[in-house]
């Protein structure tokens, strides 16, 4: 057994440039092998090889960001103009898009730079609901959200104005964030890997998940959901299948679930939701109270065009042992006996 310490410079290089999450164990393994008689040359090969591998991996991961930095050196004026436009669109999305605006936005979003810009703005504005709507229209690259850019002073003023405008509209928002309703059907996967944590169960087994806030979810087979907890929001998007949520009470953060073109909100309670079709769902409330914002505009198939001051659709309050069966444009509800309610979740076994 060798007593000399491993090369310190090699260790420093690994500690400084190694990116594996198991660096501590890797260094331990190297030390152990070195103590067992491996040569300094072997040690150096391992250290340099690992640093080189990790660097290549890091470069690959950030190639997109690097190319963005290079291109951002030029065209500053065009970029500012794009950001001004993006601010205006974010505010409109918050307010709720009119029919003509929806098509204009989709046209504007054809440019990749516009998509990136608006996604960054929504992320900088800490606006998960806007990001969720945008995520329905186009695929948001996670790096756009992870690496916010520096703003110019002029843009800061615009940001402050937009924030003031936006903060005056929280009530309007609550009736507008209905994925699949404002701008057409959700694109599966767009909202997901980019922003939240994706949970999926396979076709053969159910799955139980405990979320960070203590909310329990039992997922039926072939179910997929995305969890996004940001600051004051606990948002879930159910894109496929069926799940039972036992929502933990959190006085500071509301819980909302978007599914089948509806938005469901609760403070605490247990409910089962089953997506029965593209824009159809079956909601069974087992405990507590949930509020359902119906897909009021989907019957006509047109985008929502509500202005501030317009009568907003009345949400439905469902209490324990009630079921809402909903299809585009129609909602019906009925009361259930305890046995009937339990039968709804018999799939849990």
């Amino acid at each position, binding site marked *: *057994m060798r007593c000399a310490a*491993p090369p310190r410079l090699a260790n420093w290089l690994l500690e400084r440039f*190694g990116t*594996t*999450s*198991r660096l*501590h*164990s*890797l*260094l*331990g*393994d*190297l*030390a*152990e*092998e070195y*103590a067992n008689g491996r040569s300094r040359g072997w040690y150096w*090969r*391992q250290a340099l*090889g*690992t*640093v080189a*591998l*990790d660097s290549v*991996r890091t470069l690959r991961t950030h190639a997109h960001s690097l190319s963005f930095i290079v291109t951002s050196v030029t065209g500053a004026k065009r970029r500012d103009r794009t950001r001004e436009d993006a601010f205006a669109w974010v505010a409109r999305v918050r307010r709720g898009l009119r029919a003509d605006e929806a098509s204009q936005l989709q046209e504007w979003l054809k440019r990749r730079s516009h998509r990136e810009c608006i996604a960054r703005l929504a992320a900088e504005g800490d606006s998960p609901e806007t990001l969720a709507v945008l995520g329905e229209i186009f695929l948001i690259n996670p790096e756009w959200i992870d690496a916010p850019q520096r703003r110019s002073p002029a843009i800061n003023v615009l940001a402050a104005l937009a924030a003031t405008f936006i903060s005056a509209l929280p009530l309007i928002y609550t009736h507008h964030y209905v994925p699949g309703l404002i701008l057409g059907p959700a694109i599966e996967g767009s909202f*997901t*890997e980019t922003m939240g944590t*994706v949970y*999926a169960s396979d076709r053969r087994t159910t799955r139980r998940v405990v979320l960070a806030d203590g909310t329990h979810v039992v997922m039926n087979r072939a179910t*997929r959901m995305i969890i996004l907890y940001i600051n004051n929001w606990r948002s879930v998007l159910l894109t496929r299948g069926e799940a039972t949520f036992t929502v933990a009470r959190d006085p500071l953060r509301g819980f909302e679930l978007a599914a089948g073109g509806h938005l469901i909100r609760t403070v605490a309670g247990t409910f089962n939701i089953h997506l029965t079709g593209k824009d159809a769902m079956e909601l069974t409330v087992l405990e507590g109270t949930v509020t359902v914002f119906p897909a009021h505009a989907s019957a006509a198939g047109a985008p929502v065009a509500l202005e501030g001051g317009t009568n907003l659709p009345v949400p439905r309050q469902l209490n324990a042992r009630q079921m809402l069966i909903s299809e585009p444009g129609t909602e019906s509800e009925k009361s259930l006996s305890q046995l009937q309610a339990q039968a709804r979740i018999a799939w849990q076994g």
Partner: protein
Amino acid sequence: MGRREFLSQHELLVMLAVLRLGREAYGVPIGAEIAERTGREMLLGSVYATLDMLERKGLVASRLGEATSKRGGRAKTYFKLTAMGLRELREAQRGLQALSEGLPELQGVQS
């Protein structure tokens, strides 16, 4: 895994080595097992990077082991296959067997 992904060759090698080693599966023996059985030397850093990836996919699970003075006080990380990992491995093996069956060029190559 939300979307079906195929295992890479590195992932397959590392998973098989983890399975062979059982409770003793940590970085050094995993690398040694692969070297001994395939003649292919893998960097320890590469072994760990692959294990990182497999853990993110839910195919292996890890636990911290003992720290010794020989290791500079650093704990070992032991790995084992999850049920999903084992299933993926079986499916990969079935696929390989189905593809290689009846190929005269591969006759007598298997040890």
